């Protein structure tokens, strides 16, 4: 019985042979719908902020530096690659690429910084028409956001319907809690 099972084990090991991949010396292609590093198409992006509002890791930050200029920063160092941003993007500006070899010694290498020039309504000053029920509106966006890019902190309390320079200053004073 003991010997039989040892013989079976030898066969079990011999039959498949060596299955170890040669990676990284040979490339290892991924499946078609793989969720790798997200990439932003700045031509398509309308700056709605839907991705920032839906990111479970809070890794996409939005900072309105004036009424017409919105800075969007994607902090890849904390990204969980869930692909939620690509799902919710109304313009399909975000795609999950096949790129997964992202090890780096500088985390800015895997960040994306976009400066978006926003069209605003001259009358109300908001970035979009908030009254109609469009995709953007459905995302529950309130208007302007003032996240702190330096500390990479989403400041959820600071959202306004009118651009407010005071809020921007307040965001600058944000400090992470320390021991």
């Amino acid at each position: 019985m003991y010997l039989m099972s040892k013989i079976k084990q030898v066969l079990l090991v011999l039959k498949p042979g060596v299955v170890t991949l040669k990676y990284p010396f040979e490339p290892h292609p991924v499946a078609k719908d793989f969720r790798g590093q997200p990439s932003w198409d700045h031509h398509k992006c309308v700056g709605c902020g839907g991705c920032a509002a839906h990111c479970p890791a809070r890794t996409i930050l939005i900072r309105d530096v004036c009424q017409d200029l919105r800075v969007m920063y994607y902090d890849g160092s904390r990204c969980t690659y869930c692909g939620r941003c690509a799902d919710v993007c109304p313009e399909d500006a975000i795609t999950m690429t096949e790129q997964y070899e992202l090890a780096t010694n500088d985390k800015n290498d895997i960040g994306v910084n976009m400066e978006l020039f926003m069209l605003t309504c001259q009358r109300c000053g908001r970035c979009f028409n908030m009254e109609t029920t469009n995709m953007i509106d459905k995302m529950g966006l309130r208007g302007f956001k003032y996240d702190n890019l330096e500390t990479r902190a989403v400041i959820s309390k600071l959202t306004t319907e009118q651009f407010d320079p005071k809020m921007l200053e307040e965001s600058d004073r944000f400090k992470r809690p320390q021991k």
Partner: protein
Amino acid sequence: MLTIDDVKKQLKDKYQAAVKNFEAPYSTRLFVDIDKSKVREISNEIIKMGGRYLVSVGYDNIARDKTLGLIHNFSLDRDDLFVCIRTSAPVDNPEFDSITPDIPNAGWSEREYMDLLGMKFKGHPKPKRLILADDWPEGVYPLRKEVPYNLMPPAAENVAYQLDEAPEGCTTIPVGPFHPTLHEPAHFAVFVDGETIKGCDYRGFMVHRGLEKLCQTQVTYNEIPFIAERICGICGSVHATSYSQALELAAGLKISRRAEYIRTIMLEIERIHSHLLWLGIAGHLIGFDTVFMQAWRVREAIMWYGEKLTGNRKTYGMIVAGGVRRDITPELGDELLGILKTIEKELITIHKAIVGDGSIHRRTKGVGCITKQETELWSLVGPVARARGVDIDVRRDHPYAAYDEMQFDVPVVDSCDVWGTVVVRILETFEAIKIIRQALDKMPAGPIMTEFAEDVKPLQHAIAAVEAPRGEVVHYLITGEENRPERWRVRAPTYPNLQGVPAMLLNDQFADLPIIIGSIDPCFSCTDRVVKVDIRTGEKSRLTKMDLEKISRAKKFAGR
């Protein structure tokens, strides 16, 4: 068979005024509001009806009526019914009767709320710190609403957890803080007499991440499935499913049948890979690396399939509240059937090769024994319980997703040892393959997502359980305002199982410690909430550790 009405009647007849209110939003959930003086008696009454203790939930209700709420949850497995008994105490004197003396498994839950909410439990046998770090200041209760989620109190020096003293004549062997089984932090102080284990004390919760607090204060309902999935690195989908089901119950949303089928398939894929992973680890722990290599080789096929189907190797991100994110196309379904065929064939080969191997038998048979009665007393779950003859399985007892239409067996053995858990897990893998085949066969067409028609009403209670590979996952949800939960309580299967480990270790050899702890398939990060103890009964020793060591050496050299 007990129905909701029977339970109501029995409680009402016996406790009259102490039972204040019943609420039964669905035919399988009963919420009972009771007076806090009768907590212990009513808990025992439900155990007598055939109830099994699941978990307790404590929550902060100070803003509404200046009370702290406590909910003990029980499952009546034969009657497909969850009974949740709710009570509360004023915040200036939050004292409850402890139910731990009768239901030892409640020990951790109660200690958790001593730490996190500042509750007091009268008659608790071991009111020590469980979750919080040793240098966390007294009187700051992080789960209370007034405490911000990102509070970082200053670190203190010269504080250490006081482990239990070893029983007389025993030596303490520290195991940890890195775990001998899985590479996760947990500390066991094992008390040995020679080579024989006489008890142990556990200090864990070193990776307590405060997920519940985070989700109650920062994120929204839609984001929690992704965070829930990261509670466990091996069985993430079960947490996402359990949370989503709780939310759907609270919101009264019925998701599409196709989404339920896809959830079922995802859960079973996860079971296959988790059981193969465990089989490998168990082999590795007893020094049988052939099993380790081969089981993991077989497992790789299903991992790659998961990557193809969901876009990621693990943490699939597949299950969200309201349905699933990706559909299983006919081509992907065919591919899955092919992979299952290979896995089944290979697993039979592995099974045949190891089943007669004497070394495995000698390392696992008669090791980690506890009786069926002890298993039930400690409310152990999953393969650990099924290897001890306790016939429970949430998939069959409280059907969810598409399990009501699946035909499958629940393997139960009564060898009561580690070998039993090996057998149960191998058989369950075959059952999982069977379930996926049926699900792919019967899967109806339809949408994969169902939108929430309206906002979720605040203060709805819901409980959902899912059978994870390791046992049963329980999520309790109280909905709140601002599109996020008021309270979300997660109970991972390791939480009850780890509490039963001291009983399993008792009188075993020290060399068997890794495989015994390994046999529950522990997942410290999902549990992270901790401690327990079980010591040989006897007089309390007041000797110091040094004295004990001296004595044990003296004994040894005396030619015992």
